[in-house]
């Protein structure tokens, strides 16, 4: 059934038991909203040299947006920035694929749980939900780097 292709068990698990939720100290904070549906996220990034030391977040929104933030936390915390960026870019590519991209082994290895969002890419109205935290992370990370350099 179509519905299960979007609401994979992995996604529903992350929605019901989110990883790393709650705001903790960070080097930068951003607030992103999805104006069409009212999803909101406040997200902080803490860097330790070139490592993503923490991504903390608080927000409200649909299962897709909330689960996506949980997956992001699980996937990116502890990674080198270059690797984290590669994951973010690959996730973006998957989400913009309109369901036409069949994840291969390399992509599955890279994206882990985030690969479960492949089905969401078929729903244009929901792609923004899945990307909300990832766009917030991208901006917060850029700001955190600027702050670090200035310091």
């Amino acid at each position: 059934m179509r519905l299960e292709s979007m609401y994979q068990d992995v996604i529903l698990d992350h929605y019901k038991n989110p990883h790393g939720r709650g705001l903790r100290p960070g080097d930068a904070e951003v607030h992103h909203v999805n104006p069409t549906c009212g999803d909101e996220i406040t997200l902080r990034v803490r860097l330790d040299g070139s490592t993503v030391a923490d991504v903390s977040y608080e927000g409200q929104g649909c299962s897709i947006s909330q689960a996506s933030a949980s997956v992001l936390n699980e996937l990116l915390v502890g990674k080198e920035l270059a690797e984290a960026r590669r994951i973010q870019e690959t996730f973006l590519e998957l989400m913009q694929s309109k369901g036409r991209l069949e994840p291969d082994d390399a992509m599955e290895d890279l994206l882990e749980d985030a690969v479960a969002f492949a089905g969401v890419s078929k729903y244009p109205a929901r792609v923004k939900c899945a990307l909300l935290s990832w766009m917030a992370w991208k901006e917060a990370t850029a700001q955190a780097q600027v702050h670090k350099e200035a310091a």
Partner: protein
Amino acid sequence: MTDARAGLPGLPAGLLDTEAIRKDFPILDRVLHDGKKLVYLDNAASSQKPRQVLDAMNTYYERHHANVHRGVHVLAEEATELYEGARDKVAAFINAPSRDEVIFTKNASESLNLVANMLGWADEPYRVDSGTEIVITEMEHHSNIVPWQLLAQRTGARLKWFGLTDEGRLDLSTIDGIITERTKIVSFTLVSNILGTLNPVREIVRRAHEVGALVLIDASQAAPHAVLDVQDLGADFVAFTGHKMCGPTGIGVLWGRHELLEDLPPFLGGGEMIETVSMNSSTYAPAPHKFEAGTPPIAQAVGLGAAVDYLSGIGMDRIAAHEHALTEYALARLAEVPELRIIGPATAEDRGAAISFTLGDIHPHDVGQVLDEQGIAVRVGHHCARPVCLRYGIPATTRASFYLYTSPAEVDALVDGLEYVRRFFG
């Protein structure tokens, strides 16, 4: 024409024969995802179109199209007659004292923006500037908030608004303090697109006119559903849109009192709105043309005229009775769904046929997605009325909205669908 089910227990009287009406709307036969019948409950966003409207627009393009008001050839005359004929139909539909008081715009947003801009450029006594006040309400659609915020920012006027009660109604307890001698314009919605609330026009109009303020009513959610009599409303301007009332997109209406339309300045300049033009200055055509610069939405006006004929043929009072009965039935059925909270008036009194609700902790986006899988189209989000969501401390709502072709069986399908949503996320 009453529904065969009307006599069954639990179903109120007054329902239309939706089975017959639905034959006029080809789109309602659509079957979605694996054989699910379309249940279209997003009428507050846009209504579907009967074949009569589609045919009128097709015939116009196939037989009569030319630009209006300027040619001397047959097609130009026919197109002009059809376009101006649509104005006559709309004028009769809203009981306007004069056809010249009906201005065609592209939608209700443009109608509301047009008034805001007229007042920003107007001379005394209408002029909105610093030292004057604009009054709206907390339940407005963004299209009746943002134009006034823009006007306030540009002129230095102060923007004020009526708040809402916990029951989803306007709090008019401090009306004399909100509408004051400084108020130039009071603009409010007749029926809320998110709460469904029908607002008390008389009390607001009385106070506004007492202090010499103009009144603009956003009737976008009212014109499609009940008799709209601009003389009875007593307002100075009334705005609404065509596509929510069986007409096409791209056509809206602004009705305004004749002497105001004569006094107030035009906003958009261009062809058709002028009398004479020289390089130094121009004089303007009388209303309504003064406010219709450029080639108008001719086919859309023809479509709206056909929509007005269609609705009048069924009878606006009967449509209102149908929707009232259906809303009463839906409110009772929705009350059976555990953890469902209605956002807005909980009874069908003084209320339209749009019902917003939350369902436990399940986000409306997820509710809408799982309903869609069952062929049920609802609206989710803040419905361009984010201040209402903030007021009630919710991120968004799910909204089901009915129309003349909505049947009690579709309300049942919604209730069953919501039960399925609860199981899915349970």
